[in-house]
């Protein structure tokens, strides 16, 4: 649904994007992650037809973004990182204006606006002045706006930034709902752990270059990142430390808050082995908690040493 080929953008001598290759399948939620200035926003602006790349190509639904701007805009809903609002309008008027701007017939506009207000839970605010809304409400209004013309692709640039935890959870739920509706969503965020829960694929970008693209499992496999298990035993913890340290699959054992933190190589089914070994050694296992690799950790590891 979204594809870029050797996409590059230079601002003078500054390379914002360098030969970016990206592919997002229909119905996927793609998390776009990177530090500030990595090139996320630039990529999204190019896909939203607001910037021209220096070289390379970008396609949305098979359409060339540079050559068929209007057709692309019909298929894309773009929400910028910082969204301005027309402060002389009410919420309903604001959405109706964008409905009209997307050439939606006058007869259908009211029903469509009511529909997106319901979806984004903004019915109670339909007569409120747009600039009187809280930041969270304005983000929802932004989402309502991008949905007004029922686009196939949603490009959301940090939609959860500056929101309180409740509003973030609500936005996340809304994105899940949109995925169920079959939308392809490209989303960038600095709240990486949130993307982890909703994204099918992630792309990690740094200095305009994609340093990784794939699923969470693929991140682990590609990076050969070690996984962790937290073990708690009743009784002699030193004995447990010795037993676990003797296992060949285990790389490191160290005490951590009353637990033993066990680091092992990715790809091994270690939990059964640990439990069995400890029981055979006469130790009672109270807890055995696998600690999954977090996206934050992957981000730190993947970008470590590259940031200047």
């Amino acid at each position, binding site marked *: 649904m979204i594809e870029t080929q050797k996409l590059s953008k230079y601002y003078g001598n500054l390379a914002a994007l360098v030969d970016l290759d990206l592919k997002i399948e229909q119905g996927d939620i793609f998390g776009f992650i990177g530090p500030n200035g990595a090139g996320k926003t630039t990529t999204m602006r190019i896909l939203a037809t*607001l910037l021209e790349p220096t070289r390379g190509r970008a396609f949305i639904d098979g359409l060339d973004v540079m050559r068929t*701007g209007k057709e692309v805009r019909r298929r894309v809903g773009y929400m910028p990182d910082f969204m301005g609002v027309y402060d*002389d309008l009410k919420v309903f008027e604001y959405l109706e204006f964008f409905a009209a701007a997307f050439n939606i017939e006058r007869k259908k506009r009211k029903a469509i606006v009511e529909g997106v207000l319901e979806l984004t839970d903004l019915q109670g605010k339909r007569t409120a002045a747009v600039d009187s809304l809280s930041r969270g409400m304005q983000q929802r209004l932004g989402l309502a706006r991008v949905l007004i013309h029922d686009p196939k692709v949603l490009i959301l640039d940090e939609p959860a930034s500056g929101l309180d935890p409740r509003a973030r959870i609500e936005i996340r739920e809304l994105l899940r709902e949109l995925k169920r509706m079959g939308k392809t969503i490209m989303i960038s965020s600095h709240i990486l752990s949130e993307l982890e829960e909703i994204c099918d694929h992630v792309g990690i970008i740094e200095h305009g270059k994609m340093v990784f693209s794939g699923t969470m499992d693929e991140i682990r496999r590609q990076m050969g990142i070690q996984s962790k298990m937290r073990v708690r035993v009743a009784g002699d913890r030193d004995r447990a430390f010795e037993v676990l340290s003797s296992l060949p699959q285990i790389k490191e054992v160290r005490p951590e808050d009353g637990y033993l933190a066990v680091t092992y190589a990715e790809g091994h089914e270690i939990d059964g082995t640990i439990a069995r070994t400890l029981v055979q050694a006469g130790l009672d296992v109270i807890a055995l908690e696998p600690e999954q690799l977090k996206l934050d950790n992957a981000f730190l590891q993947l970008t470590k040493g590259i940031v200047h």
Partner: protein
Amino acid sequence: MRQKATQILTWMNRYNPIDLAGPIVDKELRVAAGRKRYYFLRTLYIAILTLFLASVWFSHVGVSPVRAGALRAADMSSAGRMTIITIVSFQFITLPILAVVLLSNSVSDEIRQGTLAVLMTTPINALQIVVGKLFGRLLVLVLLLAISFPLLSIVRVFGGVPWTFVLAGVFLTFTTSMLGGSLSLLASISIRQAYRSTILVILILVFLFLAAIAIHTWNTVGGPPKWLKEMTGFLRFLNPYAIFYGVSSTLLPGGGGPQIMNGWFGHCLFMVFLSSGIALLATIRLRKVMLTEAFGGEKNSLRRWFRLDRKTFIERRAIRPIRGECVIWKELQRIRPRTIQPFLFYGAMALFIYTITILVPGRIVLSKTFHSWFAGILVLTGLIRTASLAAGSVASEREGRCWPLLLTTLLDEKQIIRGKVVAILIDTAPLWIWLFLHTVLFTAIGVLDPLAPFGLLLTIPPGILFFIGLGMYFGTRLKTVTGAVAVTFAAPIGMSFLFPLLGFANPIFCAAWSMQLSTEDLLTEPFGLVFLGSFAAAPIIVYATLGLVFLWQARCRVRRDVFGLGQVDVIGPRG
């Protein structure tokens, strides 16, 4: 004794004028004075002053050294006097306007950036902010004023100009700048857009200027009754432009005009008191705004009741359905949220003008001069409104970061520009209709020539087109509304300097001249029709062509540099 001295020093330190203003003056001098636009304004000021001086000098002395010694000395004397009058007059006209521009964003910027609430958490009080802002920025003007001192001192000797005149000119300039600056500061507390407060205060100054002319004309031509004449003397004392006219006219060839050299000092003192009063009012108002910003207090209940508060008004009004083109609808919501607003404004203006007309004796309404002034003022008002709306129409969306949202819709460049142009025309239509109906009415009763309405029809539309094109173009080029509006106003002035003929045939003058047209004169005078032809052709061809070119350029720039990063981004015309 030592204790007494320490007490005095402590007291002096506490009430030290610099300390009274606190660190704001320091901040203004360090930060604000270093801004790009300050450098630009200073450079522009010096450039124009030099241009004026050069033209005055060469027109009096010339470049040819063949004249006899005595004549040469007379030339020098005349040039010296005219140079001083030029410098002092130039400063008197420009510096108050500069003061208005420099202080127009003094508080509104702090409110927009959210730093006003931060200032509340410091020991700095509202008075210190007002005094600091006012004097911090007026110091920039004092430097500009000081630039001319050495020149004035030297040239004064050639022309035999009394020191009193130079002093009066400098003091009048400073106190008028102080008045303009304090008014601008007061306006910037309530008006968020700097260009709006600038226009408002400049209109007040223009009103004072016109009042000075009206008082002088009234006294010279007809002459009011005795009791009114005494009142006009008092009004003249309050009006800086009238005082300056009185002071400078004593030096002009012929030395006409009222001899009121002695009144200037009293007037300056009055202006200092008036400015201090306005600054005090600004302090009270600023304190209220600071409290609202910091604690989100309730807005003035009277304003809410009358729905004068914009947010309250929007929330209480009914939902307005979109009819016709959505861009036109949206623009009209922006430029006149209250539909009745322009009618109230023009109604008040009409009431004022016609009341003055009736009150003034001598059947002034039957003179073509009155109608010339009337047309000139209305066209000036209409074009100021047109230019500021055009400049703000795109720039406000860019400034408010709504522009990318609009560009990701299915609206193309043509629809966006056309919608904005039509909305501006709808907004200003009542003014043009009023002017046209006024002209037709007075043509019908025989005061004006039948050519007058045609003159207006020929000269005003190109002017509107020119200012719309110019405003739109700079709106697409500049990042802020204030910048776009300022350049839109400055460009025609600069153009008039470069091409004086174009400046001479500007739509305001042409509209005023239209009222003076006479078919009989045109037919009997040699080259009358040729004059009329060129008179009509110049504005139509030049202004309309320039307007169309700028409008086309604006359209081409709609999708360029969408985010104000300075790069060229074009996706769309091909899409």
